[in-house]
């Protein structure tokens, strides 16, 4: 397929690591439930100071974005949370 298999593999593995870090699953579920009216400050209040790091990780995988001080799930973010929910079904 002419793909860089190693890069794809590392990306998938890194994303799994990010998802499992700190409160990142909680944050994704929270954003899926309540965004777009959620701010970074609110996330930090609910999930602790570490959550700012978690948000950075989620943003680096284009799962979350910040627009006008509000956090939202991206289309990829929604798609991944859909996938996570199939795990819990």
């Amino acid at each position, binding site marked *: 397929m002419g793909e860089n*298999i190693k890069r*794809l*593999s590392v990306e*998938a593995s890194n994303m*799994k690591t990010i998802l499992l870090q700190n409160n990142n699953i*909680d944050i994704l579920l929270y954003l899926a*439930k309540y965004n777009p009216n959620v701010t970074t400050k609110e996330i930090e209040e609910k999930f602790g100071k570490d959550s700012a790091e978690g948000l950075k990780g989620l943003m680096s995988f284009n799962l979350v974005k910040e627009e006008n001080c509000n956090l939202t799930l991206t289309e990829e973010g*929604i*798609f991944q949370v859909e996938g996570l*929910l199939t795990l819990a079904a």
Partner: protein
Amino acid sequence: MDGYFDEAKRVLEEKIPEFDTPEFRRMRDEIRKKLTDKEADLLITVRRLKILVLGDWFTAEKKQLLSDIKNNLLKNGLYAETIDRYYDMNKSGGLSQLQILETCCINHQLIVFIDGEGKGTLTEQNYLCSNYVLHGKILFLIDEAKFDKFKDNPSEYIRDFPTIITYKGDELTNKVVTYSKLRIYRLANIIKKQESAGAGLRSPNYEPWKERLKGKKGYKP
């Protein structure tokens, strides 16, 4: 946001329990538990792979068809995009359609190219045909009657696509989903297998066949 994602977001809002309830925590714990299993790796990998749906999008009807195909792929757990996510045909300035195509084709692992007529797909067709490196990740779908007309003529443009899938009428969407699923799962499996075996051309331990066969009986370099 696209129609599919609006609906998906609405469903998520319904399914996810209120924060700070035992139900929310139970859902979070279950996801965390399942995510640590090795079996979840395939799902994560599949959902990371991207499909680009290309085809005629110069009329509202054709654009809707591409959008329907994309949404069907998404509903089936395959991440798909159409080029209009990156390119606004009514907007002047910015990157050209060709530049966008270059970026998209590199960053998507599967390209579903639906044969069109004339202007609608000419840029895509010329670009894909001339970039041999992309051919391995293209599924080319063409109406069966048109294919039958061209199939015995090797000078026709269809010769440029190594994987040709024909369809009749409303079979198109189902065929795209079926073959895309096979391709994406195949790639995801390759990724997982090569990862666990540490194999592949890019592995630091990779030894070319020429080296591996050196000294073997009957081997002539």
